[in-house]
């Protein structure tokens, strides 16, 4: 299957899509004002001209390309695009200040590449094992799976879990607006014709992520990178030797934590940094430019992002905001992530997986020799970028359904998202539940019809019961890991940083 995936992925159009995706992703990672989630959300409607495989190859490329790009600003500017990149800053920036920014970027790219490739191997191995159970899945199992996806809320709730659940349920309520599934009658529309079409999840996502990021960008002063702190991007043999085991350990941590549904990359990068510091013969060098402190977390981050595709493809559970948006993209293209995806759309899945091998190789080619160009791109002023991104947001929201109502929705959610970010209310649970809402409701209604209103159906069927038990285990495990990671984040960056950032 993987070989046939490769033959498809190596067609000129699919190669071009992987290249465009990784280039846009790197650009998004390097530039301020737009994250991977926003970029994917804006581009989903634009990719309507492509077939689903080409579109998802490109969108996935943006996702992992942004991981690479993000390390550039973390190392050279000490600006972590997200909390998961903080460990990279801890030693990457001191290296840059010592004139070793180049080797730090180089080892980050090499570590990410190795971890990414190993991660894709893992994806190719594990995902079909999960998906083999597909034919045993009925509505109760799907409903339990949706409940399992709720475990992600624990990871994205930040300081107070009640806020995460409120946002999640708000997402479900937004997904109910429109026409009822069983009767076809208007529901929660309050007589408004525009609301009978429901809210478009893409407009909500662009508003919550992109518009609020642009507004936030206005507050921040952007700094261009100086090329003087770079040095050669190719690490020395000594650097490579020192980084080998941290890369392997980083991959193992990132990959296996990424298999847990909803396990945030923050957990894996901080855990990897912590492990490297504890295993090092010179822990005092950490925080002052230890290359292992860059190699481990960067590998963990990339392995985690690749492993995140396993719960996404196999169960429809995203591990990060960007994957939640990708999930929306898959659904818009009529591909229902979950156990049946491998059965019904095997060709698509294996082509996307094969394209990830190619995309990871492309990233090294685009990043290592051309890092100077990416550095120069950071000099594009925000005064130009901001309005252009704003116009792109309008185009993205409008073209999803050719509706101006969606543009108004985007603006409204942009304002809401800005205040939510300010007050540390997590927006990811809202997005996730808004996307999964219709699937959950359909599974609930079908399950209740099957069981004649008996809730016991969810525990009487072994797979469904097993998933519910797993949900409880994951929630407890996630809470423990997040509490531990929160302590590490506070130690590294102070208590002003939230795990939801």
């Amino acid at each position, binding site marked *: 299957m993987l070989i046939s995936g490769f033959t498809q992925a190596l067609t000129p159009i699919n190669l071009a899509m992987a290249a465009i995706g990784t280039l846009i992703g790197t650009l998004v990672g390097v530039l301020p004002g737009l994250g991977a989630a926003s970029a994917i959300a804006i581009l989903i409607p634009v990719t309507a001209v492509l077939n689903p495989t080409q579109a998802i190859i490109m969108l996935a490329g943006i996702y992992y390309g942004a991981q690479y790009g993000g390390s550039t600003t973390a190392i050279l500017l000490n600006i972590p695009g997200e909390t998961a990149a903080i460990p990279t800053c801890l030693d990457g920036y001191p290296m840059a200040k010592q004139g070793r920014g180049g080797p730090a970027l180089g080892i980050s790219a090499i570590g990410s590449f190795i971890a990414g490739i190993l991660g894709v191997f893992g994806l190719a191995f594990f995902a079909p094992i999960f998906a083999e159970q597909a034919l045993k899945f009925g509505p109760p199992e799907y409903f339990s799976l949706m409940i399992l996806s709720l475990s992600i809320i624990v990871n994205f709730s930040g300081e107070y879990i009640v806020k995460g659940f409120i946002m999640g349920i708000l997402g479900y309520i937004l997904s109910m607006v429109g026409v009822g599934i*069983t009767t076809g009658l208007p529901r929660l529309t309050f007589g408004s014709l525009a609301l009978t079409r429901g809210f478009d999840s893409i407009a909500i996502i662009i508003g919550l992520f992109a518009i609020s990021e642009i507004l936030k960008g206005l507050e921040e002063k952007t700094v261009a990178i100086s090329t003087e702190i770079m040095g050669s991007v190719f690490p020395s043999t000594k650097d490579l030797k020192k980084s080998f085991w941290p890369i392997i350990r980083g991959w193992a941590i990132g990959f296996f934590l990424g298999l847990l549904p909803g396990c945030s990359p923050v957990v894996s990068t901080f855990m990897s940094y912590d492990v490297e510091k504890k295993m090092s013969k010179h822990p005092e060098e950490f925080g002052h430019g230890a290359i292992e402190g860059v190699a481990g977390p960067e590998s963990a981050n990339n392995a985690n992002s690749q492993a995140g595709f396993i719960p996404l493809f196999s169960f429809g559970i995203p591990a990060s905001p960007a994957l939640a948006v990708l999930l929306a993209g898959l659904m818009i293209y009529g591909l229902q992530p979950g156990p049946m995806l491998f059965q019904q759309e095997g060709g698509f899945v294996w082509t996307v997986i094969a394209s990830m091998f190619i995309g990871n190789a492309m990233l090294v080619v685009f990043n290592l020799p051309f890092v100077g160009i990416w550095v120069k791109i950071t000099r594009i002023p925000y005064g130009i970028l901001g309005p252009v991104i*704003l116009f792109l947001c309008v185009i993205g929201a409008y073209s999803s359904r050719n509706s101006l109502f969606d543009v108004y929705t985007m603006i409204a959610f942009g304002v809401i998202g800005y205040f939510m970010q300010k007050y540390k209310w997590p927006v990811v649970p809202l997005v996730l539940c808004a996307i999964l809402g219709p699937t959950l409701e359909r599974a609930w209604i079908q399950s209740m019809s099957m069981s004649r209103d008996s809730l016991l159906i969810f525990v009487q069927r072994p797979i469904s019961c097993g998933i519910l038990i797993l949900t409880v285990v994951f929630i407890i495990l996630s809470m423990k890991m997040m509490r531990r990671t929160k302590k590490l984040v506070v130690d590294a960056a102070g208590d002003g940083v939230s795990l939801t950032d």
Partner: protein
Amino acid sequence: MKSLKFKFDYALGVISLIIGIVCLTEFKRLFPIRNSFLSGDHALPGLTGIAMIILGLLLLLVKKPKSIKVVFPEKTVMIRLMTILGILVVYSVCIAYLGYVVPTVILGIPLFRLFGGYKWLFCVATSIICTAGLYALFVFGLGMSFPRGMFF
């Protein structure tokens, strides 16, 4: 700022209660046309309504963990931010009547000015180039349809 955060959480607690009540009202409206007690369009509004009320009450009544300091930008930046949002609203209304090109060129000028503080002439030129570039890429290149309005 600490008190501001508290008020925001309190306000959202009240909003959660209101949303919960709205959902329960919708549950009551849809209940007569149900398939069964737990199956039908009424079920999820009912369940989410109850959950929102419980969570709203929890937010209002239960002591919350230590709050994070909320910092808003200074007044001039805040005004700039509000103006940009205002322009965006005007823009989205205008494109319905005037089409994509004219409002994008006209409202792009103050946007570039507000974002970058550039000279007016530079803003006019950048706005025209940006509009033309986006139109060429999306309409000619990708074959997408933009709002047409009175013009194009």
